[in-house]
């Protein structure tokens, strides 16, 4: 589903990603872990077509970036730590706007469906500006799955959420966003990543340093694995 070969990303002279290889099978849920400044967000921005690779090949859902960006965008949903919603519009108006931007037909039906999925049907006429952080993030997930994407990217989705909100978001991520889709997530929250993901890739110094599947971690836990990979 995602195929990255020898990806290099430079900002001026600074090299952020140095020949990164990355591969995701359809249906996998990959957690991308690593220290600050390792290039996780940059990598996700490249996968989401917001940033151009300096060198290397990137393929998402069978289309090459950056040349076939429009096809990739139509098959991609992104949830970041910012909700990407307009506070002066209601929940339903926000979704309607994005539905139009994605060219979705039967807008109203899909809108209701999505609002029900993220549990905000009763608040559909309320302004997003009045929503709590957790509700905004749930609506952001609704926004991201509106066009039923094949690939989902989560960039630190838990930032700024308290324990309850995080748990609720977990539930929505699992049942709505990840179901039947291919997912790549970056997070600092190892415990949540351990719960959700099927594979764990450690990004360090611009490359994937180590990778382990859920089965590989049976004898050890994620935290130990994470520490060990960064030390080596």
């Amino acid at each position, binding site marked *: 589903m995602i195929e990255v070969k020898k990806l290099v990303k430079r*900002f*001026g*002279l*600074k090299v952020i990603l140095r020949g990164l290889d990355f591969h995701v099978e359809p249906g996998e849920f990959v957690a991308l872990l690593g220290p600050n400044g390792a290039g996780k967000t940059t990598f996700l921005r490249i996968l989401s077509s917001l940033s151009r690779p300096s060198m290397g090949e990137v393929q998402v859902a069978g289309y090459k970036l950056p040349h076939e960006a429009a096809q990739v965008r139509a098959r991609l949903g992104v949830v970041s730590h910012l909700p990407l919603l307009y506070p002066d519009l209601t929940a339903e108006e926000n979704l309607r706007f994005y539905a139009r931007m994605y060219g979705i037909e039967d807008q109203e039906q899909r809108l209701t469906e999505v609002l029900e999925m993220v549990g905000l049907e009763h608040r559909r006429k309320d302004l997003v500006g009045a929503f709590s952080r957790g509700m905004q993030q749930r609506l952001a997930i609704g926004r991201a799955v509106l066009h039923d994407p094949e690939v989902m990217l989560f960039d630190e989705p838990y930032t700024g959420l308290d324990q309850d909100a995080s748990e609720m978001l977990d539930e929505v991520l699992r049942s709505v966003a990840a179901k039947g889709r291919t997912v790549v997530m970056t997070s600092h929250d190892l415990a949540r990543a351990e719960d959700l993901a099927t594979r764990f890739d450690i990004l360090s110094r611009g490359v994937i340093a180590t990778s382990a599947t859920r089965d590989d971690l049976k004898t050890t836990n994620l935290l130990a694995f994470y520490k060990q990979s960064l030390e080596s």
Partner: protein
Amino acid sequence: MQAKPTALKVLDIASILVLAISTYLALFFAPTELVMGAVQRVFYFHIGTAWVGLLGFILAAGSGIIYLITKDMKWDRFEVAAVEVSTVFFFLTIVLGSIWARPAWNTWWTWDPRLTTAAITELIYIAYFMLRQGIDDPERRARFGAVYTLLGGVSAPVTFMVIRLFRSIHPVVIGAANANQEKMSMTPDMRVAFFFALFAFTVIFIDLIWHRLRLGNMEEKVEQLKLKVSM
């Protein structure tokens, strides 16, 4: 550090020489203009600096377009060099023009099309540097710089056209003279001084751009070395 290339050394000396010759031609060789007197001699340098100022502006817009197409940072460095050098020359043009204007029109400054356009162009340059200063990512800085020089390059001629709608008192030196504008006629000796000044400032311009480009390349090297040391 790379040694200064021989060609550049030669060009440095040539620049000093042509500047000296041009000064001689302007101050002693050319005859004194009948109407305006000795102050008219400032005209040769005024035109010389204005010409390279304009040349730099056009080159900057051109290299901006090439940068946007090729994304090669070399063109960004050329654009910065061209803008920097012509900012200085344009400033000189305005100052020299003022010196000339004081006795000729009895005022330091008039809102004449050429003067005003020159001033606005200078402001576009200044805005250009402020824009670049506010951006950390070198690629974004280069992209925005290129877009802005392009906009400036399109806007400046239109500005000139618009201000021309207001009456002008600036003498038309070359090209069709407006019937109600004073036309300055040049004697052959004046022509020599005039064209030599154009030539001299073109040489100086190329020399300075070359120096600025070399400086840009060295800055880049320093950054690279710093990065290597910090890792």
